[in-house]
């Protein structure tokens, strides 16, 4: 019984770490403009729209965060092998991972923009100078929380995988969850703020991203503020739920029915989420209604 209580406590803590990590990950990837929305930032100069947005061309978020969290977890594991204190080891591992991430950010920006010289897009060095520390800070939060969560799973919940492998697995899952939830919000609502709300961006508008902000020229730094309005917390909830429910159903129900208890709980949870999704979908259709023909559009 005591073991289950400890397990639930660790599960809750891991879920909390995961929520923070998810929020920080999505904010970081929007400040740096990584992943699928970045293709619009790449396209804009080719359509004649010069911009001052950080074009962080690393790769998608899942492999990138898989790499950073694996580095963080690997260095932490190596330091713990030479008897460093676990907390210090995780912090140092996250620092090294963030250093690598920062270098990848700068080389991605310089590389892509220099290769767009034909379209007269200049390299703005002050973008790197002002944004790099912000991106690295958010990435540090995401990586540290993920590695700490993996350490809890390895040592307190006794998962058979070693720490670096757990870091890789959950890093990829973090990137996938944050990318899926946060990319449409950044891509449509922020980059194409000038398009009509409540509709997708028509293909004819590709490349015409917002480059002039509320006052002055848009900088990617503002994307952080914007992301934390919705997409950041939503990504946090997404990843937090994934981690928490995965651990919760195993810790509580693994011993029941020879292991089948956890499986049945998992299926029940999938059905619950399916119902919620159906409700959201129907609510959207009813509340927004179909497109009507143009009568008197005001």
């Amino acid at each position, binding site marked *: 019984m005591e073991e289950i209580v400890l397990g639930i406590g660790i599960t809750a803590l891991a879920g909390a770490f995961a929520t923070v990590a998810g929020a920080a990950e999505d904010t970081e990837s929007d400040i740096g403009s990584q992943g699928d929305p970045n293709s619009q930032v790449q396209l804009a100069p080719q359509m004649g729209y010069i911009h001052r947005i950080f074009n962080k061309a690393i790769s998608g978020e899942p492999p990138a965060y898989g790499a950073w969290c694996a580095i963080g977890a690997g260095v932490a594991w190596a330091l713990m092998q030479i008897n460093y204190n676990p907390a210090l080891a995780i912090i140092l591992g996250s620092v090294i991972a963030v250093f690598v991430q920062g270098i990848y950010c700068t080389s991605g920006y310089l590389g892509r923009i220099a290769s767009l010289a034909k379209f007269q897009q200049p390299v703005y060095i002050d973008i790197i100078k002002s944004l790099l520390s912000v991106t690295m800070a958010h990435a540090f939060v995401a990586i540290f929380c993920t590695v700490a969560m993996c350490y809890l799973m390895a040592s307190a919940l006794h998962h058979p995988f070693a720490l670096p492998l757990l870091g890789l697995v959950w890093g990829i899952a973090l990137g996938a969850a944050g990318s899926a939830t946060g990319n449409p919000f950044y891509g449509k609502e922020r980059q194409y703020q000038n398009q009509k709300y409540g509709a997708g961006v028509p293909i004819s508008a590709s490349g015409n991203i917002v480059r002039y902000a509320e006052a002055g020229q848009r900088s990617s730094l503002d994307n952080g503020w914007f992301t934390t309005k919705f997409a950041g917390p939503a990504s946090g909830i997404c990843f937090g739920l994934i981690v928490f429910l995965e651990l919760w159903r195993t810790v509580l129900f693994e011993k029941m029915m020879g292991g089948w208890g956890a499986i049945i709980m998992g299926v029940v949870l*999938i059905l619950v989420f399916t119902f919620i999704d159906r409700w959201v979908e129907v609510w959207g259709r009813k509340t927004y209604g179909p497109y009507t023909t143009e009568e008197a559009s005001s």
Partner: protein
Amino acid sequence: MSALGGKAAGGEGINPTGSVVGIVILLVSIAATYALGFSIVPLIGIIIGGALIGFGVHFVPVGGAPAAMGQAPGIATGVAMLAAGAGLAGLFGGAWAYEATGDFAVAVAGGAVGGGLMMAITCLMVNATYVFAMGIPAASGKIAKDPITGDTFPEYKSQGTEGHGLPFISFFGGVVGGFIAGLGGTLIYIELLDVYHTGLPAIMQANPEAIEPLAVSLAGIFAIGFFLVNAVLAAYNITGTIEGPHDPKFKRVPRAIIGCAVASAFCGLISMLIVLNTGM
């Protein structure tokens, strides 16, 4: 990231010579495993696991860069890595269940449910973003009516786009895809773990409890390698974006299953070389 020029020049349909050669490679791998003195049951399990990963990836709705702008339905991430994320989350649960119960069926089902659960939560949050934050209801661009719920789409599709969000059939596809991919990945992991459990103590002259972390890590790293190879092959088959099981591109599944099965067979043979007694 689809910032590449040139359309993919692949042909449609199954290439008969290629498929036959592939199946020959698969049978040769099985024969070689038998000749080297291993049981072929784990290799069959690995082949089935690889084929399942390839099959499952086709269910996951991926819209790529256009989905990030509300121009296409699906999730706005790369298909290989999204499937890898779901499958690995499933592998995490399945490995844990195997460690705790030692029961093959429980572990494989646990991996499947883990993958399905991750996709269910992710797809729900994607729909929540589209509906609550962006004000866009889901609509498919490839079909007029949802086969499961009967919702109609043309009047909800924004002008100039190919659809947006995750209609229920895509959500269903996502969950099923995560389920099958998690199933396949965990199957590969457990088969490899069993091979290493029996093989490693023999060649390293160590007792099974001590060798346990090494067997788990080897099986885990190999499972991730298999996952990436199979998911990328399936992604090549899809050529980047797919709306889900209702998409016409879904008909390309058979050649992905053959391809992933052959790749897994050959790679499985190589991964068994580790416990081969070469005398070195």
